[in-house]
Every structure is written in structure tokens, then in C-alpha cells.
């Protein structure tokens, strides 16, 4: 019998074909089809179709054993085996759906959004195809090394796409920052890989490692270190504190790219990595604790930074960081709890659930923002306002996205966020620190609701602030708003997956998940006081935003009313000084050392080398002057030579 999964290896290959064909075949061939756009869509769609089939097969248990594994030898060195292959379990399936589906929509949307870019579009479609390929490859990887390979290619693609408008210095700079900062995480990832590679007897296959966690020979401390380093990779890629600062800058890329990065690829890779490593991670509670703490801090900090930012895309970027923080919080908490109780908990599930939901509503939000930008040609919300009249569809779908992210039931964001907060609170029983994290989570929820609605109100509600901008605004073409509509539907409804066995399907086997009916779930959710707490926080946030930006009963200027407040306001705008710190490290410390090394190299090391040469030549010239040209001085030297030899012989006798 033939399984769809056996075709899974094609999934990353198909966009790769698109990359090669579009990227290297020249402009002429693609002039007619949006410079390759339609081809890219076709390929993405095929990949998406395959992904959906495979995912469906795996999620429904269509494949015997539940996990599809395929592997081939990539390279062998005595003691180490490098394999390449396919590993599909339910987690992979989930990611396949998210990635391929959103990517396809983004590519479709791009046809409208990037229409005016001319020949550069070809590069765009090629790169975005590669991006999709890399992310799908990452998801399908059968071992850590392969994952790392695609991980890096994802980084490369983000670099290329963020720097798509590379003639803009700020874009080039942002791309550089994205690449370099995530690379720091990658290095940690690599370290983790080394630890795994060496102490798992030279085998990095998931199937081997997950089934033989006990085979780790390095002891638990080292395992903790290993998992921590692996998580380090996620810190970089998923823009977690303290490596989060590249993400806001990455908004220099086209909005579609931002959507892709934030919703489907790149930043989700980090979460996926931690989820993928879960069977090992749960053995190391300390790592889990760190993950949870970093997740919590990130969630809160990013949310604060989003509060006052005037740039529509940046706000969304901060919100992504913040939501990613939630995901890590969930994963970390779940693992920590599991280690201590050895019982199933919702941490892992809620994290991944949030990942999926977030993928949909963040894609929706970004693409909507893209539509707005497309319409008004600015990203500054202070120039917008009242656009809901002109951009009816956009304003509507965006509103859905905002509600969803704010966590208002029954939209998707609510379900996952609620699960996360619940499990964090539950873990507080094990470690009081989690209560703190819970409070941070609630605060974040409040802020999220606030800044999202601030964004919506500033953009769509009220009176237009800049009539020039307003007058030129127009609704997006169909090719753009149709994907938006699809995403809106999903953002609205993806949360209901919870009622259709999402939980059981997605949990790792070691959790021994048990099925719950949808009534049970609803009962659990809505009998808990905490649920209402989070809803209240969200509603409060929305209400505050309404008061300030819609009704204007509170003047937003209160935040800058006093010097202290202005300072805080500025601090938030300056991203807590992280940007400056990065620059300082880069320009002052690293570049300073580099300058010093260069100086040392030229003056000291090369100086010594050249010094030898100079001294030799100088000595030569001095000795040369001894050759006076007077023969009697030569004779004198002969006599002196003889005398010295005689004296030496007499002094030292037979020894000299």
C-alpha cells in the first residue's frame, strides 16, 4: 500500500525546484507570469497539498505506527554517522499544515502586494521559495544535524528577504543584524549538537535519541547543558530575551516576508525545536525552568515595548516576540511540571496550540497591515486613522485578528492562551516562581489587548489624521484580500481544533494523553476562575485602548506628562537600550578588539618581520662601510684576524 508519507521527501524539494527555476532561469522566461510569482504559487500549492495529505495521514493515524521515518546515509566517519531523512510524527504534521498553508497564502498575497516591484520580484519569489523549502525541510528533518542545516538556511533566507530592498541602508543593516544575532543562537545550538552528537554515540537521529535518552553517556549535568544550548538556538531564532532585538528591525523587509517569518517560518522554528527536543528536554528540569523564565520575561518585556510604538509593523513584531514568549513559557512549564509529576499536562499541547493559532492570526494581522501599508504607503500609525471606511474588508479581518490575539473567547487566541496560563498557575504548586510567571502572563495579556486595539483604533477608527494619505488609500485587490479572508476564518476558528482531538493528537507519546470530549474541555475551561481572570485582563486592555484612542476620554499624552514618564516612554521606544547595547558590543567591543588586533598585526608582528629585514640591511650597510677601499686597512684586518685567532687559541687552548 502506498502512503502519502512516502512522498514526504518531495515536500521541500518542490519549492526548491521553484527556487532553482525562478532564481536561475533569468527574467525573460518569467516576464508573463509575475516574474515567477505564479510558478512559485503553483509549487507552494503543490507542496501545501502534499503536506496536508501527509499531515492528515499522520494525524488520523493513517500511517501504521504513527511515525514515519526514512533515512539515508549522508556521511560516515568512524564513530559518527551523519544521516539525512524524513521524520514525521504528529508534531511534524501540525507544523507541516501551518507552514505550508500559510506560506502558500503569503505567496498568493504577494502577487498583489509585490506587484510594483518589477524585475526584482523574480529574486523575491526565488528567495521566498527557498524560504519555504528550508522551513519545510526543517520541519521534516529526521535528525538534529539536518535540522540545523535547514535552520541555517532559514536564517539565510530571512537575511535575504529582510534585506530585499537592499539598496536601502536600513534594510541592509537590519538584515545583517538578523543574521548575526540569530547566529549567536545558532552557535549555542551547535554546541548543543556537539554534546548530543558525542554523548549519544555519534548518532543524532531523532528516532534513536528519543528512544534512547538513557543512552546519553555524559551525565545529567551535561545533558542539561546540552538541552540548554539547544534552547539557545531557539533564543536566537525565536527572538527571545536577550537576543530579541533583531526582530523589530527585521520589519525593514516587505510585509509579506514579515508575515512569513512571524507566522510560519523562522521564529516558529525555535519553538518547534524545543518541542521537537521535548523527549530529551523533559529530562532536564533546569533547562525547562530557564525556558519558562525566559519565555515569561520575553512575553512581558516585548509587550511593554509594543505599548507606545507608532509603527504598525513594529507593534506587530513586538507582539510576535511576546506571543513567542508565551509559547516558550508553556513549553518550559509543561516540561518542568512533567518532570516533577510525571503526569500529563497541557504545557506542551498549549504551546503548540498557541503556535498554530498564533500562526493564523499573526499572518492575518501582518497581511492586513500589509494591505494597509499597501494602501497608504506608510507604516506610521500617526498618519493613519479612519481607514475602516476605505478598507472595509481589511479593517474587518484585522479586527478579527486583534480580538483573537487579545484572547477573547471564542476566538482562537483565547483557547491557547488560557491553557498556557492555566498550566503555569498549576505549576506554581511545584515552584512558587511560576506564580510570578503567571502574573507576568496576565499582565502581558492585558497589555496585548491594549496595544492591539490601540493599533486598530489608530489605524481604522476615528478621523483621518493625514488627508493626503487618506485620500490615496484604496482597498486591496482580490488576490490580497482573499487570503486575508481565509486567514480570518482560521484565526476565528482554529481554536476549535481543541475540541477535535488536537490535544491527544499532538501530545508526545510519553505523555500518554487521554481523550477528553469537548464538553469536558469546556467544563474545565469555564469552571476555572483563572479563565475569567485572563478574560478580564484582556477586556480591560481593550477598554483602556477604547477610552484612549477611540473615545479619547483619556489623553494618550498622559504617558509623557512628566519627565519620569517621558523617560520611561523613551526607554520603551529605545527598546530598553538593547539596540544601543548591541551596537556598543558590535562597534565598540568587537570592532575595537578587531582594530587592536589589526594594529598588533601590522605594527608588532609584521613590525618584527620587517624589523628583521631592516636591521639586516642596516647592519649590512654598516659592515659595508668597513670596506674602505684602502688595501692597507685590509691588510691590517688580516693581521688583526691572525692575532685574534692566535690569542683565542692561546686563551682557550684546545677547547675553542
Amino acid at each position, binding site marked *: 500500500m502506498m502512503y502519502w508519507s512516502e512522498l514526504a521527501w518531495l515536500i521541500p524539494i518542490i519549492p526548491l525546484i521553484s527556487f532553482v527555476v525562478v532564481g536561475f532561469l533569468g527574467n525573460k522566461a518569467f516576464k508573463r507570469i509575475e516574474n515567477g510569482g505564479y510558478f512559485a504559487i503553483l509549487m507552494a500549492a503543490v507542496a501545501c497539498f502534499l503536506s496536508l495529505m501527509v499531515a492528515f495521514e499522520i494525524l488520523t493515524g493513517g500511517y501504521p505506527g504513527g511515525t514515519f521515518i526514512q533515512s539515508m546515509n549522508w*556521511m560516515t566517519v*568512524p564513530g559518527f554517522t551523519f544521516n539525512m531523512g524524513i521524520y514525521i510524527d504528529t508534531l511534524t504534521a501540525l507544523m507541516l499544515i501551518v507552514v505550508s498553508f500559510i506560506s502558500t497564502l503569503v505567496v498568493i498575497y504577494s502577487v498583489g502586494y509585490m506587484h510594483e516591484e518589477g524585475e526584482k520580484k523574480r529574486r523575491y519569489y526565488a528567495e521566498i521559495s527557498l524560504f519555504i523549502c528550508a522551513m519545510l525541510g526543517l520541519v521534516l528533518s529526521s535528525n538534529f544535524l539536518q535540522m540545523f542545516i535547514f*535552520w*541555517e538556511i532559514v536564517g539565510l533566507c530571512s537575511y535575504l528577504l529582510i534585506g530585499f530592498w*537592499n*539598496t536601502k541602508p536600513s534594510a541592509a543593516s537590519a*538584515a545583517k543584524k538578523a543574521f548575526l544575532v540569530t547566529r549567536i543562537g545558532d552557535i549555542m545550538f551547535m*554546541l548543543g549538537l*556537539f554534546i548530543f552528537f558525542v554523548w549519544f554515540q555519534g548518532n543524532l537521529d531523532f528516532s534513536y535519541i528519543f528512544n534512547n535518552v538513557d543512552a546519553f553517556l555524559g551525565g545529567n549535568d551535561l545533558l542539561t547543558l546540552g538541552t540548554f544550548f539547544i534552547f539557545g538556538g531557539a533564543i536566537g531564532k525565536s527572538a527571545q530575551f536577550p537576543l530579541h532585538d533583531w526582530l523589530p528591525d527585521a520589519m525593514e523587509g516587505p510585509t509579506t516576508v514579515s508575515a512569513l517569518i512571524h507566522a510560519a517560518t523562522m521564529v516558529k522554528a525555535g519553538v518547534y525545536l524545543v518541542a521537537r527536543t521535548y523527549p530529551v528536554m523533559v529530562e532536564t528540569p533546569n533547562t525547562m525552568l530557564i525556558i519558562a523564565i525566559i519565555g515569561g520575561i520575553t512575553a512581558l518585556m516585548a509587550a511593554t515595548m509594543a505599548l507606545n510604538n507608532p509603527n504598525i509593523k513594529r507593534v506587530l513584531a513586538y507582539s510576535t516576540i511576546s506571543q513567542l514568549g508565551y509559547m516558550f513559557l508553556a513549553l518550559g512549564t509543561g516540561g518542568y511540571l512533567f518532570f516533577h509529576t510525571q503526569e500529563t499536562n497541557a504545557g506542551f499541547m498549549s504551546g503548540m496550540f498557541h503556535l498554530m493559532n498564533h500562526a493564523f492570526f499573526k499572518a492575518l494581522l501582518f497581511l492586513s497591515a500589509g494591505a494597509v501599508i499597501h494602501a497608504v504607503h506608510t507604516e506610521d500609525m500617526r498618519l493613519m486613522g479612519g481607514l475602516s471606511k476605505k478598507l472595509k474588508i481589511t479593517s474587518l479581518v484585522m479586527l478579527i485578528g486583534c480580538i483573537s490575539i487579545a484572547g477573547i473567547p471564542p476566538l482562537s487566541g483565547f483557547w491557547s492562551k488560557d491553557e498556557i496560563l492555566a498550566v503555569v498557575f498549576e505549576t506554581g504548586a511545584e515552584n512558587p516562581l511560576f506564580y510570578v510567571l503567571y502574573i507576568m502572563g496576565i499582565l502581558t495579556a492585558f497589555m496585548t489587548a491594549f496595544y492591539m486595539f490601540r493599533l486598530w483604533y489608530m489605524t481604522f477608527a476615528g478621523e483621518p489624521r493625514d488627508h493626503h494619505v487618506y485620500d490615496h488609500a484604496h482597498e486591496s485587490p482580490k488576490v490580497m484580500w482573499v487570503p486575508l479572508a481565509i486567514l480570518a476564518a482560521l484565526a476565528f476558528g482554529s481554536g476549535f481544533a481543541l475540541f477535535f482531538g488536537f490535544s491527544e493528537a499532538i501530545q508526545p507519546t510519553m505523555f500518554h494523553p487521554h481523550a477528553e470530549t469537548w464538553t469536558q474541555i469546556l467544563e474545565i475551561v469555564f469552571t476555572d476562575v483563572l479563565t475569567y481572570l485572563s478574560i478580564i485582563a484582556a477586556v480591560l486592555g481593550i477598554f483602556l485602548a477604547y477610552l484612549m484612542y477611540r473615545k479619547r476620554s483619556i489623553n494618550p499624552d498622559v504617558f509623557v506628562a512628566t519627565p519620569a514618564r517621558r523617560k520611561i516612554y523613551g526607554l520603551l521606544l529605545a527598546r530598553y537600550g538593547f539596540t544601543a547595547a548591541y551596537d556598543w558590543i558590535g562597534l565598540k567591543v*568587537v570592532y575595537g578588539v578587531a582594530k587592536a588586533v589589526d594594529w598588533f598585526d601590522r605594527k608588532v608582528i609584521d613590525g618584527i618581520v620587517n624589523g628583521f629585514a631592516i636591521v639586516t640591511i642596516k647592519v649590512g650597510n654598516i659592515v659595508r662601510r668597513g670596506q674602505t677601499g684602502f688595501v692597507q686597512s685590509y691588510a691590517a684586518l688580516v693581521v688583526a684576524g691572525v692575532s685574534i685567532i692566535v690569542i683565542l687559541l692561546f686563551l682557550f687552548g684546545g677547547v675553542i
Partner: protein
Amino acid sequence: MFENFPILSLLLIVPLIGSMMTFAAGKHAKAARYLALVFSGITLVIATLIIMNFSLSAPLGTEFQFDEAYDWVPMLGISYHLGVDGISMLMVFLSALLVFLAILFSWDVEERTSSYMGLMLLLDVGVLGVFTALDYFLFYIFWEVVLIPMYFLIAIWGGPSRAYASIKFFIYTHVASLFMLLGIFALYFTASPLLGAPSFDMIEIASVSGDIGHALQLIIYAALFFGFIVKMPMVPFHTWLPDAHVQAPTAGSVLLAGLLLKMGSYGIIRICVFTFPDITVEAQVLIAIIGVLSIVYGAFACLAQTDLKKMVAYSSISHMGIVLLGIATLTDLGMAAAVFQMFAHGLITAVLFMTCGMFQHKAGTREIPLLGGLAPKVPVLSTVMMIGFMASLGLPGLVGFVAEFSVFTATYDFFDLWVIVPIASVALTAAYYIWAMQRSIFGSLTTKIDTEHIHDAYWFETVPLAVLIGLIALFGIYPRLVMDIIVPSIPRILTGVI
């Protein structure tokens, strides 16, 4: 297929004849070009034939393949002994390939074309000889033969201060080789009595080197090692390299970095490790420190450069440090990865120097601050540069990653978490490349140079680059093609170590 046919000699003779004929072409530049291309092409074909007939299944520890041995000066035990194992096989192929591509890339050299092409072929002879020689004396001769064409290439076709750079290169590396020679002779004199007959044969000497007194071994080792690390070059004996590279013509830089540096690391593997396993084990940490120092120091130095080519030159130091680090692990993985890195660096650095040369050629400068925003003007060149940089900074999917990852894995395996130090330089590497790219091809179009007449790559530039990039990607995606050649030869190198 070639059991009794002296194919390795043929490999050396063909470029030699080609070189003579090319020199003889004199003023007929066009003839010289085609002659050089044809002969280097034949060399490449022969090298390819050899590699295709290279037996991968030969049992571990078997002798060298395509072995040829004739007496030369039997009185002193000097013989003409050639042979290849997996390590040298790879280097032979790389040499033949790079020379061929470099000749093609130099298609537009107008000044003294025949000499230029002839010297390239002569260089080919020397390098191929170094990688196939199994006799110390022969090895040394080829080693030195390499210097002369390179000296001329730099001195005649080089940049403004070529006189300084060429003589510095010449003398610096000559000093090192002389010390190596000293070591070779000391080895010869101590090993010959142990063998009962004078011999310069690498394999025979290695079989008795363990019986040499420890102190003497140490001295010999130091002399040889010094000779090799200057060639590689490792910090602090590296300062000839940036000068030589900056001044050398593009093809010269390609061969200098692509092949000549490999001679050093090849020597360490083939001679130091193979012949003196005990000392190598003792010096292991020191070797690793030198390697790491070069990696980090080179990376920092790169960051401070404003000349694109100088930056790439320093990056060579950094990347050759990775080779040394791999060797220092003395594990199968590390050693194999070191060889892989030699190969990878050969391919990558060729691309990098070619792009630098094209910038010089087309934009008239390599100074990064003067460049900027050229990507739309020269899309092919920019793309190639980007791929080259990415390969060099160890992007997976390209050949450099496999090597670096393996080396660092082996380093972790052996030196534990000290691997953090060299691996941190990976970020630095990314930093200087990305930063250089940001300033040279991205951003707004420069006004400091005339950008009106910049022409993108010509066909003879595109073809070699395309070939190289194709190989970089091919071996990056499927490294087994290379690794399977290397791996069987490693245990033999390491027999004494384990």
C-alpha cells in the same frame, strides 16, 4: 585500469610540457591561452581519471595507490616515489581543477600572457608534485618549485607594492622550508641507520621513527612543524600572507590560497602526524592552541580590514586554523574533517578571490568604504560574492559547513567545552562577511567611484565561478562524495596515535 601505467608521472609531465610550450608561445598571446587551457584541461582530465579509478574499497592500511617508485640517487636513498591515498587524491584533484579554472579566469590577461600561463602550469607541476610525492627529498623539491612561479606571478602581475610583497613571500616561506629541510635531513640521518640503508622514503622512515630518541624527535618535529605552519600560515607566522594576497593577481591569489596553503596542512598530516605520533600527542594541546589562535585572531583581523581582498586573506588564516584544529584533535572525525576543510576552503576561497579580483577589475577598487550599493549594477557578481561569503562563513548546504561542523564536533569530542572559543569565531566570521557585504554591494549606490561603466561578469569569469559554486553546493549537499575518499586513509595516518 592503471596498474602498470605511470599515470601520476603523466600527471606531472603534462603540465610541465604544457608550461614549456606555453612559454615558447612568446608573443602569441592567444596561442598561449589556448595551450595553457588545453594542457591544464588534460591535467584535469587525468586527475579525474585517477580519482575515478581510485579504489574506495581498498582495505584499511593498504599501501598508496598508483604507486610508482624509481631510484634517483640510490647512494643516498633518494627515490622518485609517487603515490596517492585519499588525502592526497583529493588535493590532486583540487589542484588540477583550480589551475584549470584559474587559467580560464585569467583569459583577459594581456600583459606577457605566455609567461603568465606558463607559470600557472609550472605551479601546477609543483603543487601536484607536493601532493603525490612519497619521498622526502622529492617532496621538498616540489615544495620549493612552487615558490618560483608564485614569486613571479606576484612580482610581475601584482599590485602596486608587489615588489615588497613578492620578496617577502619568497623569503619568508623559503626560510620556513629551509627549516623543514633541516628537519628532513635530521630525520634522514637518524632514521637511515635504523633502517639499515639510507632512505628518504616517507613510509619507510615512518616505520622506524618511533625508535628515534625523544629529544631528537622533538627537535625534528619542531623544524618540520615550523616549516608547515608558516606555509599554512598560522599566527604569528602569517604576515606574509595578507601582503602576498593583496598584491597578487587574482589567479595568483586563487592558487595561493587554494593550493599553496594546503601544502602546509598536508605536510602536517602526511609528515608530522604520520611520522611522529608520539610527539604529536604531546604537542596536541599546543597545536590546538595555535589553531584556535589563528581562527580567532584571523577573524578579528578580518573585521578590521577595509580591503576586500585583505579581508579574504585573513579569513584564509582563520579557516586554515580550523584545519589545524581538526588535525589537533587526532581523531578520525577531526582529521577527516580537516582534510575536508582543506578541500572546501580550496573551492570557496577560489570563489572569494575571484570575486575580489572582479571588483578590482570592474570597479577599480577593492576598498570597502569606496564601494557600496553595487548589487543592482552587477547582479551576477554580487550573487556569486554572496554565495562565496555564505559558503565561507559555514552556511549549511554548502561545503564549508560540513567541514567546520565536523571539526568542531571533533574538537568538542576531544577538548570538551573549549570548543566555545573557536566556535565563537563563527559569529565573527559571519560578522565580517555580512558587514562587508552590507557595505560593498548593499546600501545606496556609491558616488566615490565611477559606477557608470561597471560591467558584470564576462563569460570566462562566470564559467569558473559557476563550476566552483556548483561543486561547493554539490559537496555541501552530498559530502559523502568527498568523505568516502578521505575516511579510509585516516586510520593509517593515525595508526601511531591510537
